[in-house]
């Protein structure tokens, strides 16, 4: 991998949220939401980030965009290191880096018209005004396959899928090169999910966009991603190409996640042996010592409690953190 291909580098990123208790609000601990992760995203690719709720995948996306101030670690976007930027410099960087949110109902201001929602970035960055905004908004609406005359309407007049398209149009307004898609389809109906995924793919090939696609649905992640990172309790446990991950999952957590996917084929469902994980994800306030997955791992050994497994490249482009691999 040559460096010119890499658009985003995350280096040992940590995000701990402090917990305060008592009358004097003493700091008693921290939620280790993201606890030292490193990866790179190449230009034009889609990197899928999967894991169960509470594993830190959304926090990762937000911390990359500096919506949270990271506890430690560095984020390089193109040639700029983001964590040391002043807020005004970061504001300007956000033209290049955008986000699509999970909840299409909560992420659009109900008191703003579609034109104002999509046009706001154009105005606040001063790239267009008046008539130009109207033209650009109409263009963007057409791009996401909505009627360009809908600019005067309010979000409540749209369905969930249409709202998600408005959110996508807003993200595209500044012609970004990198978009964090934070579970953009989980709140949508099955038939609408496919529409939105197809739209995201079309836009990617048209504008050469790079996506970080966060989801808990492994089958959809496999469909849209070039490479997939699997997260568990604040760390990445496995990262590789999409086909390699599904053909040859090495980490026991990845294997369990894959076997938990319901498959729409009764014959296959009856035949396969499912490996069902016991219990729930432990609390990120006090993550288990050593390997974090050991409390639910079917093949845990004594060493797993003592030492955190090393992040290794076991075959070209296949990274895993497990003692038993």
């Amino acid at each position, binding site marked *: 991998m040559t460096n010119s291909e890499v658009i985003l580098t995350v280096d040992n990123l940590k995000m701990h949220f402090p917990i305060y208790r008592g009358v004097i609000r003493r700091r008693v601990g921290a939620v280790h939401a993201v606890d030292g992760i490193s990866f790179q995203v190449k230009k034009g690719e889609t990197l899928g980030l999967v894991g169960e709720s509470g594993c830190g995948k959304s926090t990762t996306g937000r911390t990359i965009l500096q919506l949270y101030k990271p506890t430690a670690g560095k984020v390089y976007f193109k040639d700029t290191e983001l964590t040391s930027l002043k807020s005004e410099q970061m504001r300007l960087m956000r033209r290049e880096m955008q986000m699509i949110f999970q909840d299409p109902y909560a992420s659009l201001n109900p008191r703003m018209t579609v034109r104002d929602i999509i046009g706001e970035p154009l105005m606040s960055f001063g790239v267009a005004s008046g008539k130009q905004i109207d033209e650009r908004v109409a263009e963007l609406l057409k791009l996401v396959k909505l009627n360009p005359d809908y600019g005067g309407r309010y979000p409540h007049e749209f369905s969930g899928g249409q709202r998600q398209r408005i959110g996508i149009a807003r993200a595209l307004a500044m012609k970004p090169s990198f978009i964090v898609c934070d579970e953009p389809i989980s709140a949508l*109906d099955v038939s609408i999910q496919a529409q939105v995924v197809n739209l995201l793919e079309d836009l990617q090939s048209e504008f050469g966009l790079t996506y970080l696609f966060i989801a808990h649905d492994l089958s959809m992640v496999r469909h849209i991603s070039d490479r997939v990172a699997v997260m568990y309790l604040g760390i990445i446990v496995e990262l590789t190409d999409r086909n390699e991950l599904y053909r040859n999952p090495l980490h026991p957590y990845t294997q369990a996640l894959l076997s938990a996917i319901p498959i*729409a084929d009764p014959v296959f469902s009856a035949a396969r042996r499912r490996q069902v994980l016991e219990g729930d994800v432990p609390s990120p306030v006090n993550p288990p010592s050593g390997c974090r997955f050991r409390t639910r791992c079917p093949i845990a050994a004594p060493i797993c409690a003592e030492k955190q497994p090393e992040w290794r490249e076991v075959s070209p482009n296949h990274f895993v953190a497990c003692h038993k691999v």
Partner: protein
Amino acid sequence: MVDHLLSVQDLETQFKTPEGIVHAVNGVSFDLSEGETLGVVGESGCGKSVTMLSVMRLVQCPPGKIVAGKALFHGKDLLQLSPEEIRAVRGGQISMVFQDPMTSLNPVMTIGDQLAEPLILHLNMTKEQARKRAIELLGLVGIPRAEERLKDYPHQYSGGMRQRVMIAMALSCNPQILIADEPTTALDVTIQAQIVELVKRLREELGMAIVWITHDLGVVAGLAQRVIVMYGGFIIEEAEVKELYAHPRHPYTLGLLGSLPKIHEESRTKLYSIEGMPPVLYRKPTSCPFAPRCAWAMERCWNENPVLESINPNHRVACFADTTNGSKHA
């Protein structure tokens, strides 16, 4: 003719809204046999939940109203029972598990008290008997240290554990029918797998019939024996589970199956997507409700609403088109 445990006939439910009367369920008929697992599949607003809520008489009235139909349970029409009579059936012989385990438990009652409530109410148990049975039930659904955890409040349980408690509660009076309304939708895929395996085990042990309402064709494939697909308040296809997945006939079912990404696919193909949105019906339709989104729609579909017809003993479908050569399907 086989005697069915539950037989729903021509059920119609409507809701009064400021915009007009919404026809949520439009003449739905189906049977459920003893010990059978029936999957009810469809997208939000297709009437799948309202159908089962109507059977349980849990549709709020007003704005909702059951306009027509019958729901025969052991020969008694549930829709004609008095409020006291239906209350005896509900939670006793027929019980229900809801989608959101976070909001369907009472946050200010301990898990133990909530589990004991139906036992004392339906089975006339004493408090002590109910407590013992509650411990048994928690063990049955796989909650460790059941005795201690009875004293906990819902917020001390995780989402998956709360759903286990809901299932324990639903099973507490040995129901003949368990209605599960999207019980795993709010849960992570690993926890979903746990719950599905749990329900399969309980089904073997207790032998109740299950109605599993979901939008996820994947979950149903591994669980149900028969599947009903709903759209716009109608049943548009009904088949034995293997038959449905191997030979789907209705364009909507084809679309739903096609829009799922294939887990075995190596190269990336475009997902099939059904254009448009599910309808909200303010009038009882005189055309096929799926016609506006259908690739096979022809003139007849706009003039007439197809009725559910058998194409073989295990398969009923409501469609005029011949979709057997799937050429219009990507």
